[in-house]
């Protein structure tokens, strides 16, 4: 269990965070810059002291203002990957990697050194000095260094934020591999929903220093009342699914989920793997009748559960589109024009068919799920 319940006044910002969740998998803190995400992980790490509250990881109390417990940073057994790599410039890559490893207590979990440098692809860098490495390589070494300290929990504070887009997509798979291979629980801070969908199981929404919601990623991203926090522009639904089979001839993969089957571009994971898929609201269209001759591979029957108009545009005019929530076994968000809404005379409770183009589903939006039993 991760149990965090802390408060801290930072200038005008009052940080107040209460998070309780399973340790397994990845916990993501999502929020805008300056919302206090980093302060929350820093309080877990001991880099920032809470005014009051407690922090407990798997029954081990790191901080408790009531009983006066405040473990020193080096006693907390956390691994911290910062936004900047923070490699020690006077040490070789090898010495950097060994820095935390040598200091890990003997009873800590043992992560194999060769495994880590293999997975991170940093074997050939081992004798180099940090200043000779590229940004992506540095961050991989930093990941390895934190991991090799054999921590109870790995904290990552926007580890990709200082990298360009190409480097980001280079590092992300490494973080996924760390999650799947070494099974170290992670708290991942980010302001990028794409990263979070690929990595996280549990989502924590942080706004203005406060934790607004904690819950399974799929659930929170489909909740309307949280739309302001989860982001409107790329609004969509996150659906938990399982790989059923691959179609080699046409390069497709069939997924099963609560609402039926979904065909998406071929993914590399083996059948049986749990995945998470993000479908953007603007990639879904609606039909009143069951279409027969359409190019969309995915036709799903459902019922309109909610119509939700957008806020007015900045100039006071009404926006051209509207979001519709269709219950197809799970909540699926659809964005259509108000013109279509009027033409089709859509109302809540109506039966409807949702059409999803397979090609609109980005392979990158598929995240492998960590816990197989968790399909809410």
């Amino acid at each position, binding site marked *: 269990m991760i149990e965090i319940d802390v408060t801290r006044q930072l200038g005008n910002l009052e940080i107040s965070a209460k998070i309780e969740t399973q340790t397994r998998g990845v916990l993501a803190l999502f929020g805008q810059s300056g919302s206090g995400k980093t302060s929350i992980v820093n309080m877990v*790490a*001991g*880099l920032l002291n809470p005014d009051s509250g407690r922090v407990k990881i798997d029954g081990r109390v790191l901080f408790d203002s009531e009983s006066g417990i405040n473990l*020193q*940073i*080096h*006693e*907390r*057994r*956390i*691994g*911290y990957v*910062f936004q*900047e*790599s*923070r*490699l*020690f*410039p*006077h040490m070789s890559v090898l010495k950097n990697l060994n*820095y*935390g490893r040598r*200091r*890990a207590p003997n009873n800590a979990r043992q992560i194999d050194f060769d495994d880590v440098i293999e997975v991170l692809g940093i074997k050939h860098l081992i004798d180099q*000095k*940090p*200043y000779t490495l590229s940004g992506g390589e*540095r961050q991989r070494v930093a990941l390895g*260094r*934190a991991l090799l*300290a054999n921590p109870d929990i790995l904290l990552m504070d926007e580890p990709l934020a200082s990298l360009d887009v190409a480097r980001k997509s280079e590092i992300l798979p490494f973080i996924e591999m760390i999650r799947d291979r070494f099974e170290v629980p992670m708290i991942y801070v980010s302001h990028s929903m794409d990263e979070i969908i690929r990595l996280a199981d549990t989502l924590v929404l942080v706004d203005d220093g406060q934790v607004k919601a904690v819950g399974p990623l799929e659930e929170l991203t489909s909740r309307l009342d949280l739309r302001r926090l989860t982001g409107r522009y790329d609004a969509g639904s996150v659906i938990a699914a399982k790989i059923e089979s691959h179609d080699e001839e046409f390069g497709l993969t069939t997924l099963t989920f609560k609402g039926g089957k979904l065909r998406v571009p071929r993914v590399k994971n083996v059948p049986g793997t749990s995945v998470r898929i993000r479908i953007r609201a603007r990639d879904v269209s609606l039909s009143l009748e069951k279409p027969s001759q359409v190019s969309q591979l995915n036709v799903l029957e459902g019922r309109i559960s909610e119509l939700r108009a957008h806020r007015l545009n900045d100039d006071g005019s009404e926006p051209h589109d509207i979001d519709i929530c269709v219950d197809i076994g799970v909540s699926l968000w659809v964005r259509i024009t108000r013109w279509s809404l009027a033409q089709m005379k859509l109302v809540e409770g109506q039966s409807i068919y949702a059409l999803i183009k397979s090609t609109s589903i980005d392979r990158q939006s598929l995240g492998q799920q960590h816990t197989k039993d968790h399909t809410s």
Partner: protein
Amino acid sequence: MDFLTELEIEAIWLSLKISAWAMIWSMPLALGTAWILARYEFPGKFLFDGIIHLPLVLPPVVIGYVLLITMGRQGVVGSFLYDTFGITLAFSWRGAAVAAGIMAFPLIVRAIRLSLEAVDQRLEAAARTLGAHPIVVFLTITLPLTIPGIIVGAILGFARCLGEFGATITFVSNIPGETRTLPIALYAFSQVPGGEAAALRIVVISVAIALFALAGSEILARRMRKRIGSGHD
């Protein structure tokens, strides 16, 4: 060494011995002082900083005189040292080492402090999260990254000690074989008629030592820069 007179060898040896001892006592103290000045804010810091810098701005003779009245046999500190440890500072080479160290102190502190302030404290935080005790962080991260400043401080300090004259002659006088360092020897020769040739020889010796030390320090500094690498992130 035929080309040096016995007197010259004695002066060189004394100068080096006194400077070395001055560095031995002042370096660790300067490191601690620089650490306090670089990392802590406290009431009276301005005054503390000012006192540290006094030897840089006061006439050396003033420092020497203050040392004489406090650390001389009759002085508060001097009588205590003599009664408890049997150590006499006034008119001995030990006193010369004290005087030289005090005169060099602000230079050493300044160099180390600059270097300490340049150390990225986020690296120290990272080391803490990797399980290192604060003392270990200091020894493995802060100190190695401060080495360039420590070297610069040591070189400046040593050079200052070799050249120290005013405070030394006031506090420990000019005693052949005990406190007659190179500068004091030069002064003594220049005061007697016909001493020009001997004085000139000391000038040449001083220049040679200075050039030798500069070259050595340059090589050392280069090697250090290479070891530490360029930039952090």
